């Protein structure tokens, strides 16, 4: 797998992993605040679910920019490892969680054989990451012991969050980045370049 990637693509994944590891950690505390705010209403369980999609975003951004097999999985894994390097209190378990979320996003790209990177596939990647991570949390945090209606409600919120915060926001950030011209050496930048040349020719 790593032989297909250029070194600069790997370093890009790592740097994205580092940047988003910091953002992920900040959102951990933000989610805590949200949870405490919602707790008195008996909705504390939703505090994290609303923003859960943010934790899948690096998969979507990296895969959308680089467009090669394994990128969605590896970039999420790197973000997980870097959070451990930063000293996240979630520790090595976080690497496992990251791997599962990354596998979810990768699954959506694998269905299209890593050829299709339209918005709907990016949203599907966010949704699958949400499904995979939800299944894992049913087990690891013991969410399975919750009442059925609450499980279904949190699941729905997480899926919507994955679709919007990871899929839509991820595409938006990547497109904004491509506009600055820094992605010229990567698949997304090249595609946009061709698009512009095509438009000019017409």
């Amino acid at each position, binding site marked *: 797998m*790593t032989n297909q*990637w*250029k*070194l*600069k693509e*790997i*370093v*890009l*994944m*790592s*740097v*994205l*992993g*580092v*940047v988003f590891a*910091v953002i992920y950690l900040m959102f951990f505390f933000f989610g*805590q605040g949200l*949870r*405490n705010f919602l*707790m008195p209403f*008996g909705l*504390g*369980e939703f505090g994290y679910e609303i923003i859960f999609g943010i934790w899948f975003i690096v998969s979507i951004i990296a895969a959308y920019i680089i467009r090669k097999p394994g990128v969605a999985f*590896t970039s999420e894994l*790197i973000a997980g*490892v*870097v959070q*451990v*390097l*930063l*000293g*996240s*209190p*979630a*520790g*090595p*378990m*976080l*690497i*496992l969680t990251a791997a599962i979320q990354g596998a979810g996003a990768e699954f959506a790209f694998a269905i299209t054989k890593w050829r299709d990177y339209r918005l709907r596939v990016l949203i599907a990647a966010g949704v699958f990451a949400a499904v995979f991570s939800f299944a894992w949390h049913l*087990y*690891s*945090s*013991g969410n*399975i*012991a*919750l*009442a*059925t209606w*609450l*499980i279904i409600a949190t699941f729905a919120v997480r899926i919507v969050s994955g679709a919007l915060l990871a899929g839509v926001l991820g595409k938006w*950030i990547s497109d*904004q*980045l491509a506009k*600055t011209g*820094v*992605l010229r*050496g990567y698949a997304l930048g090249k595609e946009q370049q061709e698009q512009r040349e095509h438009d000019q020719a017409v």
Partner: protein
Amino acid sequence: MISSINPSVKAGAILIPGVLLGLMFDIFTPLIYLIFIIIVTFAFSHISIKKWLLIFSPFVLLALGFAWMRMLYTSEAFDSGPVLIQFWHIEITKGAMEVAASLALRSLCFVALSLLFVLTTDSTKFMLSLMQQCKLSPKLTYGVLAGYRFLPTFKHELDVLRQAHRIRGVGRAKGIRGRIQQFRRYSIPLLANAIRKAERVAIAMESKGFTGERERTHYHEMKVTKRDWYFFGTLVGTFFLVVFLSYSLGFLNIFGKDIN
């Protein structure tokens, strides 16, 4: 001392009990294991009790909140036994109380295990060990280490960006639309700079002769010794011992099923 244990073996020793704890739904098993981890933490590492408590105690509060939520909304499978507390229209049964306490103790076990790792492990050594023991590709390892090295510079860049905005008269954002605009103004240039750096680093690495081949020599050889396996055996072995103990005392509860 735990800080000298091989980081990959240490991570494994923490992951296995961590994952298996997910099966346990009784109070006894996570409680005894939590006590064991705390004893190991202070007996075999130089972590100061004050520092550890400072990090750990917020999680006790979190776990209490977590338990409270679990207690209010317990699934029917666990919601059994006599009603212990009753107010308004809320009834809390013995079963709900037990499962909530068990899940809270489990989350504290996770935190204690993680702290045991995070507070005793050097980040560079962890990456090198992942490369040498877990066969992570050198391209990825050095890529991550290079990216990690940039972290302090991001903060500096953010300061520069903020000053550049201020000098051009761009003030603080007001309202939700302003906030979104502000988010864009900061995040896109920061990410763009990071991407430029990534490209430069990759070129620099290649120009210095870095090929990313697996057959390479290492300046820091990370070895796995017998001591590492003793540590692994102690952490994982004690977990099974605790499970066996709670089985023989009749406490063991796997996925809501009492096993005696």
